[in-house]
């Protein structure tokens, strides 16, 4: 991804590589939020801003042969797993060069060649798919794993219980990553969710862990243990990563919501715990400022290039709406 000679991203678990991945997600989405306001996007976008450490920390352990499935808030997972920023941007623009040829949009960005089963417009929709990919990985016997990213909203879908049960029974190499970002769409999590989500894994006897989802090094460590267990055939893990959705549920929600569902103070408190700021603090003294600046410059170049590519890409031929139904 990087052509900047001065930065070494060869180890995906290195602080610089993690920062690069998180910043890529952040800047791609910040730009997207600006573009959304201009009205140039055909459809809705749900931004991952504030949660970048979760996708980056977990995907750092994964290769193309491992599987992930994601949510309607899926740009971060797509990019963290190695999805192409150009192909994602073009998809959001609905262009023929998009990763799904303009048929999917934001909620369906996927790249199966990179193990990205994709974003999913159904809350909890990716959980069952990941359990199936975990079964495939188990049958293949090559030590691959499958990771389901889902939110605290999806934790209240029955499919999570079903997946934990079958994951425990069959010892599936499955990692169920709940990103508790505080909100189930527009409802504060504690108004719709009883108890602690992480505790829901305990009756099934699967491994469980909670982690500060804004601390990428902490996520990296917890994810490493879960991935290692899964690769060794020791079964399923439930991780609850506590984080915060800094943007709204959907990008233009201010235009249709008549009242606030959270306070400005609460948002400001979490901004102070921004995972990117925390990472810069962590890197101070360990990584040279020149390297950090080089990463920032590299990301600006990638983001500008991605959206330029999208804007200049052609619309799909209308009749291609009838392609790709059956193989």
């Amino acid at each position: 991804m990087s052509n900047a000679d001065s930065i070494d991203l060869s180890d995906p678990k290195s602080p610089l590589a993690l920062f690069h991945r998180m910043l890529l997600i952040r800047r791609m989405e910040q730009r997207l939020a600006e573009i959304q306001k201009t009205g140039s996007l055909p459809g809705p976008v749900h931004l991952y801003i504030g949660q970048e450490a979760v996708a980056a920390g977990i995907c750092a352990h994964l290769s193309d042969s491992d599987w992930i499935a994601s949510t309607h808030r899926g740009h971060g997972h797509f990019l963290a797993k190695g999805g192409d920023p150009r192909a994602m941007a073009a998809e959001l623009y609905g262009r023929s060069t998009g990763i799904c040829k303009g048929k999917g949009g934001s909620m369906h960005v996927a790249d199966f060649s990179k193990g990205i089963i994709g974003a999913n417009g159904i809350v909890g929709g990716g959980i069952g798919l990941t359990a199936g990919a975990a079964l495939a990985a188990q049958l293949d016997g090559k030590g691959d794993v499958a990771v389901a990213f889902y939110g605290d909203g999806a934790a209240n879908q029955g499919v999570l219980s079903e997946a934990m049960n079958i994951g425990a029974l069959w010892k599936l190499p499955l990692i169920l990553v709940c990103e508790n970002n505080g909100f189930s769409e527009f409802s504060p999590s504690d108004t719709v969710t009883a108890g602690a989500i992480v505790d829901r894994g305990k009756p099934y006897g699967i491994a469980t862990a909670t982690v500060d989802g804004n601390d990428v090094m902490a996520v990296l460590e917890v994810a490493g243990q879960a991935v290692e267990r899964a690769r060794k055939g020791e079964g399923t893990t439930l991780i609850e990563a506590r984080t915060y959705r800094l943007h709204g549920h959907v990008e233009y929600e201010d235009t249709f919501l008549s009242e606030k569902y959270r306070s400005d103070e609460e948002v400001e408190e979490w901004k102070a715990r921004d995972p990117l700021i925390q990472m810069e603090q962590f890197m101070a003294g360990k990584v040279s400022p020149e390297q950090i600046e080089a990463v920032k410059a590299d990301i600006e170049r990638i983001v500008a290039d991605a959206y330029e590519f999208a804007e200049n890409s052609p619309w799909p031929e209308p009749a291609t709406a009838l392609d790709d139904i059956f193989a």
Partner: protein
Amino acid sequence: MARKRMIPVINEVLAEEMERDERVILFGEDVEISLFGDTKGLIKKFGPKQVRNTPISETVMTGMAVGAAAAGYRPICHLMYGNFMYTGMDAIANQAAKLRYMTGGQIKLPIVFFLVVGGGRSAGAQHSDVVHPTLMNLGGIKVVSASNPYDAKGLLKAAIRDDNPVVFLQTAGRGGEAGEVPDEDYVIPLGVADIKREGSDVTIVAIGSMVRHALKAAEELEKQGISAEVIDPRTVVPLDHDTILKSVRRTGRLVVVDEARLTCSAASEISAIAAEHAFADLKAPIIRVAVPDVGMPYSPPLEKFVLPDAQKVIDAVLKITKG
């Protein structure tokens, strides 16, 4: 060639396909003990690498079929009764039917969802639905209904080897219809209707288990001097428009027999196709013989009242052929 009943034939096909390709895997509710006999003995032959009982968890098991298919396997997901599909509907309607399309054709999803459908057994409203109308409207699921053991073998082999999600609807009952089945391997392509009986006065299109009622009706009608052609679409998705339309243009009359509820049934769709494309050739109104818009009742006289049968098909034909 040997005379066999439907369920043993399905059992043989599953074994042959799992033997042929180890990526064909079977999982579902009670597939190890096998409620219907269709999956009997397969666990002993193939073990847990290819055959697994699942919990009664339709939501995750249908999702797993999609995920395993995306990851390179050819899962057969046995959901037991057709009505249980509704519990697993997210993965069927939102994932299996859409994932290839909405990702721009990136993947193939070779899945067979196995469902047992149909009334006549006093199983009540939650174990008797014939679910193809719902599936026909999803835009990405093929739907197979076999009306005899010969077709069941060729269609099920085609379904398992197809690179798309296919729902295989098996008619409920003890062993199903009996018929001659060749020993050798063969497939019946999905989307090709079969003319089960030739005729010239009226076209009767019948779906799945309704074919036997249509054939019985045709025999009776012949005694009354009416020549009925009986067409079995074999798959309602894809639907063989050409065979149906060719016949309707020749006979000028159409009766469609469907065990689904009338509204938005396959009978409705086939009638619309005929009205749209063969209107000038029609000599009489099209008649749909289907189940009224009620859940299947329990008591035998109630069930008999709502289910199509040979007499109802005869009555429909007589209505449009008299004079």
